[in-house]
């Protein structure tokens, strides 16, 4: 009966293909209990099955979950990885972080497009393939990278691109492509307390259960653990407020939406330290009184999903997850939700919206997630690294942890180091390490600039490399991108500006318009139309967006740009075409279509860019 009603909404009755599609959709809907809060997962699975999300498919899903169609469409249109038009059997997305660019991704993308006879962003005429760019895929230490039907391929070379074009033309399924292409390295270069933890799976969890919730919270407080996502909020305060908040149920969310350009440490933790992360989640659940947790895994890390699911299942079998963990009467289970290509979902309230099946637009706060989070229930959202560290603290105690790092930034920090360094990868350092020490360890002798918090944080110049990585000096979520003296910092700024213009969720005007204005101004400079007014405008935009944006994205989107304008001014001044105002487009060329259609070529059919030539002849007539 269900299939029949869906069949009607597909509006092409009778065809066998359609009824197969409708049956597939019905199976997926049933697997998710026709629950609208699972819409992001439903859309992804349906798209995997159908290739794209057609209007009929969206109607069928809307009917299936009992939501208005407009709401389903709004979610489907919000996420980059969902497409509401066909984009071919093969969808190739080149990671377009500045580090990928520095490794030559643009030439590779052009080359693949040429070989496949298509334009970036458009499907090939035979409907076989589309090629486009996407935001950083978290493979900066082994780029250039791309996603082929949302599967990660690293270390691209011209040879791999050649072969890929060949495989696509021969319609070889992505799953049958050479397996070494999909290999992702951990590249751990320096281990400290966390990466050398030496604990067995569940050991930390057992220690936490021994301490009891109050004892555990006491240890977390003594450790002075601060959130590793970048903001550095005190974990004990977050957990206590969540525990104390009234609700029908409490939730733990592991924020694995590692979207900041240049960061990939959570990927390594999930890949090789997953038990510590799961222990940490269980511990958080024990501390706040939750029995359910979610891992919000970024869509770019789709390749990890099956492996992580398998490990969760193994832990359930081993009594380390699910009902009555370790036979101690504590029950806690974890579900993995996959994101779909939206940087903003790293913001905790946007992440929760996404978990509820909606577009990832940040909520108005307060109320904060600790009181009104997932399904309006008390929810603690913690970074992957924070949870792993909580597991470590449960075993070794707060005092021990506090002995590492600085007074205000205790413990160690995982740094994802990429760009112009000899040894890109993961470096675990105690907080307080200087930028110079990190550069030394990674092998970066000729460094011009370092961005210390991805695209959304400060950019340091060489005279600041003595500064310390810590919340009280140089705060970081872990993204350290290094630029040597051969790099044009203008291009770095432009890459970041386009990233933010693409990733702004569009909810508030300062961010939606401001990020687009900055991207256009930098393009204006790149196109040789720059003037000092454009630089002033960017400064103005920085001040405006800082105060007026709805969330952290808008508030941080111009920090690196402002730093680069201040510290690497010659890179921008070099692009200025005139000391006076300069339009961003060629006015004479803007008459091209009218000239062509009228056949005119008289002087009046042209516009010179000489302002004074015209202005000079008019005032004489105007004077009384």
């Amino acid at each position, binding site marked *: 009966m269900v299939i029949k009603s869906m069949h009607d909404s597909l509006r092409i009755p009778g065809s066998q293909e359609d009824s197969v599609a409708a049956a597939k959709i019905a199976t997926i809907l049933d697997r998710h209990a026709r629950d609208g809060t699972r819409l992001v997962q439903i859309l992804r699975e349906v798209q995997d099955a159908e290739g794209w999300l057609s209007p009929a498919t969206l109607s069928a899903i809307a009917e299936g979950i009992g939501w208005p169609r407009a709401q389903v469409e709004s979610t489907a249109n919000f996420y980059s990885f969902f497409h509401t038009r066909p984009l071919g059997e093969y969808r190739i997305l080149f990671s377009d972080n500045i580090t990928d660019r520095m490794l030559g991704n643009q030439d590779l993308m052009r080359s693949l497009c040429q070989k496949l006879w298509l334009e970036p962003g458009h499907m090939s005429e035979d409907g076989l393939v589309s090629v486009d760019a996407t935001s950083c895929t978290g493979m900066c230490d082994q780029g250039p990278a791309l996603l082929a039907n949302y599967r990660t391929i690293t270390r691209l070379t011209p040879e791999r691109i050649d072969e890929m074009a060949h495989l696509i033309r021969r319609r070889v399924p992505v799953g049958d492509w050479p397996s070494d292409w999909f290999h992702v390295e951990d590249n751990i270069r320096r281990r400290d307390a966390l990466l050398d933890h030496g604990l067995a799976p569940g050991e930390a969890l057992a220690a936490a259960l021994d301490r009891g919730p109050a004892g555990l919270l006491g240890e977390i407080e003594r450790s002075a653990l601060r959130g590793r996502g970048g903001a550095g909020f005190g974990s004990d305060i977050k957990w206590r407020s969540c525990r104390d908040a009234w609700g029908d149920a409490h939730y733990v969310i592991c924020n694995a939406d590692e979207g900041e350009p240049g960061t990939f440490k959570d990927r390594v933790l999930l890949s090789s330290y997953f038990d510590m992360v799961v222990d940490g989640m269980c511990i958080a659940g024990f501390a706040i009184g939750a029995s359910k947790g979610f891992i919000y895994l970024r869509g770019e890390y789709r390749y990890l999903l099956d492996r992580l699911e398998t490990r969760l299942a193994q832990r359930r079998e081993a009594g380390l997850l699910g009902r009555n963990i370790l036979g101690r009467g504590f029950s806690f289970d974890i579900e993995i939700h996959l994101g779909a290509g939206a940087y903003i979902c790293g913001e905790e309230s946007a992440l929760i919206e996404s978990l509820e099946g909606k577009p990832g637009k940040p909520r108005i706060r307060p109320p904060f997630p600790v009181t009104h989070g997932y399904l309006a229930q008390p929810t603690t959202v913690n970074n992957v690294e924070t949870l792993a560290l909580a597991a470590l603290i449960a075993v070794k105690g707060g005092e021990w942890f506090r002995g590492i790092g600085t007074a205000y930034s205790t413990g160690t920090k995982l740094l994802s180091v990429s760009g112009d360094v000899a040894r890109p990868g993961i470096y675990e350092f105690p907080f307080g390490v200087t930028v110079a020490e990190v550069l030394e360890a990674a092998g970066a002798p000729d460094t011009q600039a370092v961005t210390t918090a991805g695209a959304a944080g400060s950019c340091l110049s060489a005279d600041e490399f003595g500064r310390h990585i810590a919340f009280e000096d140089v705060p970081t979520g872990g993204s350290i991108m290094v630029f040597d003296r051969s790099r044009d910092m203008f291009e770095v700024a432009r890459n970041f500006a386009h990233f933010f213009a693409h990733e702004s969720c569009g909810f508030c005007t300062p961010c939606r318009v401001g990020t687009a204005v900055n991207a256009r101004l930098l393009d204006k400079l790149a196109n040789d139309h720059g003037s000092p007014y454009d630089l002033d405008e960017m400064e103005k935009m920085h001040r405006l967006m800082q105060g007026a944006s709805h969330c952290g994205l808008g508030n941080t989107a111009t920090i690196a740009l402002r730093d680069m304008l201040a510290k690497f001014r010659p890179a921008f001044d070099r692009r200025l075409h005139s000391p006076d105002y300069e339009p961003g487009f060629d006015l004479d060329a803007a008459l091209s279509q009218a000239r062509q259609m009228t*056949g005119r070529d008289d002087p009046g059919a042209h516009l010179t860019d000489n302002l004074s030539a015209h202005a000079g002849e008019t005032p004489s007539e105007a004077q009384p």
Partner: protein
Amino acid sequence: MSTATDDAAVGTTPRKLKVATVSLAGCFGCHMSFLDIDERILPLLELVEFDRSPITDIKHCGPCDIGLIEGGVCNAENVHVLREFRANCKVLIALGACAVNGGLPAQRNHLELADILQQVYRTGHGLADGSQIPNDPELPLPLNQVHPVHEVVRIDYFLPGCPPSGDAIWAFLTQLIEGREPALGHGLLHYD
């Protein structure tokens, strides 16, 4: 060149500020809204003298203190007029939604100009036989796209609204004339 100091030296009363106004690709709605300052135009005229403006019918702008631009830039003549204003006005103001953003005329920006001309003059309904796209050199050619004024010249102030209210224009001008940095509070700034 006539400047403030020259005039001040001659007379005892301060020289009146010169104001020019024009509507480019606009509907004159912002000018009508300007007239909504009603009887306040009399005290305004104590302070300013109009140069080029629909009020005076002066055809070209001379050296001015303040220039008010209504409407976006849709054709070559708009470009010439706007450049003339920029060259002559010390302070240039984008007045209203079309000047600030392109506004309603910019709705054509998602269409190809060639297609529009073709359809309007050649293939549309109700055209005389042999109808052609006008090509008289007297006529300004339309630009491929309609632009807000700040994309063509430097603009000092933006006064949004469709139209900005008479009160907003009055408050803005009086603050500017008094030599203050114009700041319109809540209630005077509208983006619709």
